[in-house]
């Protein structure tokens, strides 16, 4: 009897991703276990979505690329060498597929961040004040985030989604593990400054 309360193969223990659980889920999926596959999809799709979103492909193509990464995993389930590192493998695959799609479409220009061009108007006076302030804050934060350099966006996105360890993030971004902490602080400081600037200019 499979409980609907929790996934049968949790990937996280006490909030942290357990590499052994990830490897076990990959092996079970390879042996045909559908529930194990579902666990992997639930666990890693938010992360993959975050990775692919940084390419600003638009919703349909972003979904397309994420699904292609999952297809690649299905194709390679039997031959994957390091099942515990499947998160990194998926991210690398997704980035490659995003690049392929961009080039296949011959697009040199990426689509502008939709959030920036379609900023909703400030909430009217009928809106409860607290709600309006909160919405405004989120809007500012989103705009400020879009104004960060790409490397900051990618790093903060991965940290915010929180399924990869620092070691895996270091591998993914090809940076020394020791520099993640300092870069994180630097990027967050920059984000704060942008929020302030945008807030003043608004």
């Amino acid at each position, binding site marked *: 009897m499979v409980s609907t309360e929790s996934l049968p193969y949790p990937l996280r223990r006490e909030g942290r991703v357990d590499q052994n659980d990830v490897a076990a889920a990959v092996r079970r999926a390879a042996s045909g276990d559908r529930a194990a596959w579902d666990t992997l999809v639930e666990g890693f799709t938010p992360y993959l979505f975050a990775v692919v979103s940084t390419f600003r492909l638009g919703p349909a193509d972003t979904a397309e690329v994420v699904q*292609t990464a*999952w297809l690649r995993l299905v194709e390679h389930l039997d031959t994957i060498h390091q099942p515990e590192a499947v998160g990194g493998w998926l991210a690398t695959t997704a980035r490659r597929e995003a690049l392929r799609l961009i080039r296949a479409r011959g697009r040199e220009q990426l689509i502008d961040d939709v959030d920036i061009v379609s900023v909703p108007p400030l909430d009217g006076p009928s809106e409860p004040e607290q709600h309006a302030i909160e919405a405004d804050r989120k809007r500012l934060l989103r705009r400020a985030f879009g104004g960060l350099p790409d490397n900051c966006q990618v790093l903060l996105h991965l940290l915010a989604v929180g399924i990869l360890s620092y070691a895996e993030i270091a591998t993914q971004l090809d940076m020394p593990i020791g520099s993640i902490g300092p870069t994180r602080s630097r990027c967050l400081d920059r984000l704060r400054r942008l929020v302030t600037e945008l807030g003043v200019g608004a």
Partner: protein
Amino acid sequence: MSADDDDELLADLAAILLPPPPELVAASKEIFTWRTIDGELAALTFDSLIDESVGAVRSSTDAPRMLTFETGSTLVDAELSVVDGVRRLMGHLSPARAAELELIVDGGRLTTDVDDRGRFSLDLPETAARVEMRIRFDDGTSIWTAATAI
């Protein structure tokens, strides 16, 4: 700024970053059913779009795109060219043999014959999309190419 402030800002950020749409998660789960499909996978082992342009100046976009898919025993080479706005995929199988080829794109199917010299040609839809080819041989065996944006 303190570490707590940083953690708080990161948590705020997590709240505004969009989660994946539920239908994307559902569709990704469904992809598992592809495993049950008969036949051998021909993995994508070369794509000039990705494998040739690293570090190189992308000169002309007119150069045809070359793709290679491989199983342990069969090679599928394909070339994508655009002539008068028509995107045409021409290719051949090695070793050469006749087959039925079914191309699956955007939920639709296009079929053609692979001749006895292993050659095939297909016109693709206007826009690049995820494409798979199912190739069925006379002896009942089949291969399918890895899903690829073509």
